[in-house]
């Protein structure tokens, strides 16, 4: 996690990265609630990023948006459902918790974030500029005061979630997009619990 950054249009005030060989170690599911492990891993990265800015966005949760980008999304749970559906069985909890949108939506539930939210189901390398563009538009139009830009990837058998906390840039601050790109292209950290 880091803190700082400047921006013109969009700037990064903190970021967080979490990796795990088995993302289920971050899951906090309950008998009446299930979300795909990727959603929980992203939520863990969001927590790291919030820690890096002293939870600054949480003072205005209605104005915090989320854009998540991932090609894999909720493949774990979708695959499990595909298997069980062949026998005519689909768990309603897993059906709800398999939605790719959960990559953005779970953080909203956990921190009561009611800003605009979006999941781009594509490789973050290809989708990150679009994510940053949409985030910048929300900030520009006042639809959000902060936007979390998150990515989830599977790299070398490591599940990696990264999150940047962005806000509108101020005069003299450089564009935050290069920092977001660098975050996503950065090295895979040593996974916890390996």
């Amino acid at each position, binding site marked *: 996690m880091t803190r700082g950054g400047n921006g013109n249009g969009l700037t990064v005030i903190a970021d967080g990265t979490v990796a795990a060989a088995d993302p289920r170690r971050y899951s906090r599911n309950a008998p009446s609630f299930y979300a795909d492990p990727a959603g929980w891993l992203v939520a863990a990265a969001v927590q790291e990023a919030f820690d890096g800015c002293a939870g600054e966005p949480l003072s205005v949760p209605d104005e915090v948006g989320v854009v998540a980008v991932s090609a894999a999304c909720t493949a774990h749970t979708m695959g499990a459902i595909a298997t069980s559906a062949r026998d005519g069985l*689909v768990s309603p909890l897993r*059906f709800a918790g398999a939605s790719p949108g959960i990559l953005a939506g779970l953080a*909203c539930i956990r921190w009561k974030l009611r800003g605009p939210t979006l*999941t781009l189901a594509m490789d973050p390398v290809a989708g990150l500029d679009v994510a940053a563009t949409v985030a910048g538009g929300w900030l520009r139009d006042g639809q959000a005061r902060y936007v979390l830009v998150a990515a989830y990837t599977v790299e070398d058998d490591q599940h990696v979630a990264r999150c940047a906390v962005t806000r509108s840039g101020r005069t003299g601050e450089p564009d935050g997009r290069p920092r977001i790109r660098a975050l996503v292209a950065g090295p895979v950290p040593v996974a916890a619990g390996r």
Partner: protein
Amino acid sequence: MATVPGPADICVTGMAWTTPLGDTLDGVWQRLLAGDHGLRDTPSPYPLRTTLAATVPRQSPATRQSPATQQSPATQRQLDLGVQTLSAAFDCAGLDPGEPSARLVCGTSYGPFLDEPAGSCDDWAVETARRVGHPHRPVCVSTACSAGSDAILVGAELIRCGSTEVCVAGGVDVVTQAKRLGHSALGTMSEDRLRAFDARHDGMVPGEGAAFLVLESARSARERGAPVYAILRGTGSSNDATGLTNPDPSGDSVTLAVRRCLASGGSTVDRVAVVSAHATGTPVNDAVESASLARLFGAGAAAPVVFATKGALGHSLGATGAIEAVALILALRDGRIPPVYGLDTPMPGFPLPLAAGAPRHFSGDAGISLTIGFGGFNTCLLFERIDGDPGR
């Protein structure tokens, strides 16, 4: 008075849909106005709350050239619906799908993935683009039942920020066995019919289809003399932050999305003449939407009329936002809305006028389309009618 596109406006210069009621703009629209439905008994090897589903029949020339049958794998059907509809949207706008200045944004919910897992969640969109001859990698959006609307929201932003002059955006989704089992197990599926806002509402009926809108900067549309069907005046969204399947019961979150949309378009609630509601027919969704509409419009002197197409077209999940955007644009063009199929007796306390049993006329130039998706995705699109009549 209808609108004339201004220099900063985002114009809709083409649109297409493929639905259980057909695949021509006015053909489907006329059937909706006539009160038709596309529900079919669709057998299942496993018990379901209903075997009704609104599936797309094999009827169009494009589909016959690239067979999409009810027996085809889900991925193939997703591709066929996408290719047919996307090609038709480009054609409607007078654009070549290979146009290098255009971008493509595709939305879906689960698409075929719950039955046929894919290597990457955008494989279907990439293949759809390749088959129509589009040169760029598409942007792929997945926000459950708001995906079609959110694809349009993303496309609009790509134009606003100057990334592109033309963006073709919409959604595609298919009925599959796993999705039917899931909605049946979850209890969101009706045991009868989808009766949105009716006192007897008890859930949705699955549907499938596709729709794409060609969004274009006013400058680009003017320079090439493109027809303009409507202006996309505003976009807004919010998250419920309450649960995966239960919307925010207060209506606060839906209200936030609508207010953000209106603010982005410099508009106000009193300008909204018509609402295309999400209207899944589940008691929970209908209650939240009713509460939200009451908070937004309840005190207004000129309440907008409300319509909904899922009763006739089924709930096409990731496609529904785009399909309903097309329906709203046609409603604005004609100044009338189709009857809500399945609605006989409006639920107690519903705050706005509904069309029950017959089409209903309205006056005004602006309308909103509202979608509410699993994961809390509330999205609102604001369209305005334009002077002239390119859609006929």
